[in-house]
Every structure is written in structure tokens, then in C-alpha cells.
């Protein structure tokens, strides 16, 4: 799948699957194509080549879009509506609306229900946008940098709310974020997008198990392994590798954390992507 804007390709040869029921992290540097990918999955954009399937169909279909909630970075809400009027709009536009769920999110943040959206802080608007998204009772929740303007308490509360939603309703969640530590222990599936292409796609535990952090001296050989990143400081050599065959005993070996793995990939845009391992060539999201 690919998406071309006037200025060039935003996504190219992008193939991945997000299994239903997972919490998937969408990671990549600025301009990598994350927002484009989410807009494509939400049916707001159409691919220029290939196709994207969401919940088994084209996300342009009205029935599919009714089952998707998308919270974009700019969180478009009517600034002149009050919080209560915004929820009322959600209730009237969505047949499967769950008032209690939306109210819980708003009340947890102690938002005054009769304040206009335009007078709320950025973080409070985010809370209203998430209340709308959850009140719709979606099967697929697409979130573009949802936590960026939230304070630490609100961030923890809302992440807890999202996880509870996933636990209780089996909602598939795709969440983009720059804050790598925030994704650790939250996501179980990973999409790493860089330069418009998917570099890693798959189950987090599987991806971590395929990689090792090696520490040794620069006299030691990495030759047999696929090197994602190698760093030298003095005589010390540290490397993130995908091992091929046994690792020589002289290395100190660790399994990387998610953050270590992602940083190593982001620092090395030229390093080879895993072949078929962990990646699935089908262009199908949340099948």
C-alpha cells in the first residue's frame, strides 16, 4: 500500500497486519507517515496504490466507519459547544452510544459540563475527544499522539481507561506516540514506520526475542549476526543484533527493552529490516 501527496510519497510499499484485539503501538520519527497511515485506516484518505482493509472491509464503507473511532492530533471539536452539548452530539450521531462510558471519562477529569470547548485547556479537550471516541463503543480505536498534551496524572488515568476498554470489550487499539517509555508494558503489537515504509511489524514479545544486546570489546566479531546498530566508545563495543546461530561466549548478552530496541532502529535508518520474520506482507489492518 502507498499514499502519494503532491509533495511526494508519504507511504510506500507499506505492508502489515494488526491482529484484532491487540494494543498496537505506531512508532516512527516525525514525517514518517504515522498520521497518514492512521487517516488511511480511518477511511479519511484513500491509498494511491494497493489497498487497506479494516475489520475485513474498505474503511470508506459507512458500516465500517461506524465501528471505528479516530482521535486525530488536532482533535476537531466545536469550540462554541459546551462539554454536555458535545456529548449530546455524540449520542445523537452514534446509534451504539454508551453515555455512561463517555461521562466516566469526562467526570474523571472533573471537567465542568457547561463550559465551552473553546475555554478548555489542550489536555481537557483531549479528554473530551477521548470521551467521544470511547462513547461510540468502537471495535477499533485509532489514536494519533493522544497523550501529548496531558499532565502525568491524566495520562496515567486515560491510559488505564483505554486498557480497561481493551480488556472489557476486546477493542483493538492503534496508538501512535513519540514517548517510547509510555508504550512499554502498554502495547503488545508494534508497527515501526520510517521514511514511509514499515521497518518492524509484529508481536512485541516475538520482536524482542529476535534481538539481543551484545556488549564486548571492539576486537570481537559481530560478523555472523545481522547488526541493527553497533556503537563504539573507546575499546567497548555495544551492538543490537538479530542473532544468526549461537552467540560467542565472550559477549555479555541481554534481551533489549522495547525502548532500547526502538531507539537503536530509529538511530540507524539504514539498517536492514527483518526479512519475513515477524513481518506479514498482507496489507490488512485489524482483520
Amino acid at each position, binding site marked *: 500500500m502507498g499514499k502519494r501527496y503532491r509533495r511526494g510519497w508519504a507511504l510506500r510499499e507499506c505492508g502489515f497486519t494488526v491482529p484484532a484485539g*491487540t*494494543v498496537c503501538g505506531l512508532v516512527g520519527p516525525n514525517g514518517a507517515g504515522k498520521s497518514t497511515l492512521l487517516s488511511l485506516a480511518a477511511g479519511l484518505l484513500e491509498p494511491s496504490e494497493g489497498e487497506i482493509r479494516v475489520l475485513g472491509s474498505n474503511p470508506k464503507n459507512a458500516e465500517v466507519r461506524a465501528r471505528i473511532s479516530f482521535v486525530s492530533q488536532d482533535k476537531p471539536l466545536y469550540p462554541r459547544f459546551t462539554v454536555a452539548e458535545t456529548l449530546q452530539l455524540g449520542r445523537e450521531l452514534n446509534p451504539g452510544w454508551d453515555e455512561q462510558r463517555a461521562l466516566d471519562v469526562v467526570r474523571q477529569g472533573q471537567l465542568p459540563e457547561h463550559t465551552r470547548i473553546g475555554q478548555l485547556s489542550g489536555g481537557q479537550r483531549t479528554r473530551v475527544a477521548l470521551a467521544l471516541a470511547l462513547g461510540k463503543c468502537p471495535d477499533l480505536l485509532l489514536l494519533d499522539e493522544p497523550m501529548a498534551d496531558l499532565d502525568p496524572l491524566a495520562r*496515567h488515568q486515560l*491510559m*488505564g*481507561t*483505554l*486498557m*480497561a476498554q*481493551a*480488556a*472489557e470489550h476486546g477493542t483493538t487499539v492503534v496508538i501512535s506516540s513519540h514517548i517510547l*517509555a509510555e508504550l*512499554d*508494558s*502498554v*502495547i*503488545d503489537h508494534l508497527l515501526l514506520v520510517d521514511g514511509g515504509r514499515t521497518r518492524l511489524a509484529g508481536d512485541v514479545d516475538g520482536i524482542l526475542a529476535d534481538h539481543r544486546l551484545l556488549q564486548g570489546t571492539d576486537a570481537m566479531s559481530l560478523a555472523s549476526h545481522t547488526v541493527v546498530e553497533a556503537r563504539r566508545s573507546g575499546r567497548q563495543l555495544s551492538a543490537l543484533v538479530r542473532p544468526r546461530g549461537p552467540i560467542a561466549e565472550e559477549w555479555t548478552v541481554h534481551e533489549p*527493552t522495547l525502548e532500547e530496541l526502538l531507539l537503536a532502529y530509529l538511530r540507524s535508518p539504514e539498517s536492514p529490516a527483518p526479512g519475513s520474520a515477524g513481518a506479514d506482507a498482507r496489507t490488512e489492518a485489524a482483520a
Partner: protein
Amino acid sequence: MGVIEYRIERRSGIATYLQIVLQTKQALRLGVLLPGDKLPTAREVVEATAINPNTVLKAYRELEREGLVQPRPGLGTFVQRGLGNAEAADGSPLRGDLAHWVDQALAAELDRDDIAALMAAVLEERLAAGATRGTIEGTK
């Protein structure tokens, strides 16, 4: 909230599911959790800790595999048996052997840190040799 609240440390280097397993076992050892108690639901745990629900389910499956808890469909996950630590109690043969070994180590002029490091290294080595991932016992 139920009878136990989990504390998740994200930077501890211990896998999140394993933290839940270890904290549950600790609660069983201390008698904080008793047979018949209900563990919190996955929803309750993730709402409080903001971790992935599958992590909680993985931890509970591990506890079930070890015979410590049992899921009852539609009701929740219940403690099946406590962690009787007869093997670790005063006067048990295992404990006696270890005390004897520590005496030998002290006689050989190893200090507290040396002994702890040696214990940890041998434990790691034996676990790596004998056990596959996921069957690690948290028992001290």
C-alpha cells in the same frame, strides 16, 4: 478493589507479567492471599496500572499452570492453594544444607556480597540449564 493491588515498576528490568506473578506469590507466602480469595479482574488491574490486559492474563495463566489459582468461567480467578513454605521453614533439610554451605563460604572468607553474587550466579546458571523461559520459580 480486591484483596491485592499490584505495583508495576516499568524500569525494574523484570518483565511486567513476571512482576504480577512474583507479587501474587509473595502475597500467598505472607498469607495476604488465601485459598478461595478472588484475584482482581484483568480490567481492574489494567485500569489501575495502565498496562496491557494480555500481560495480566499471561500472569494469571502462569499462576494457573503452577496450580496456584483457578479460573471459574464468568466468576473470575480464584486462589487454589496457598504457598506453604515447608521447604523453606526453620529446620527443613533444604534450609539446613544451605546454612551449612554458607558456613563453609564464610570460613573461606567470602563476604556477604561475594556470597550473594555467587548464589545469584549459580541460580541463574542452574535455571538457564534446566528451565525454559516461563517456568522460572520465584521461590527463594
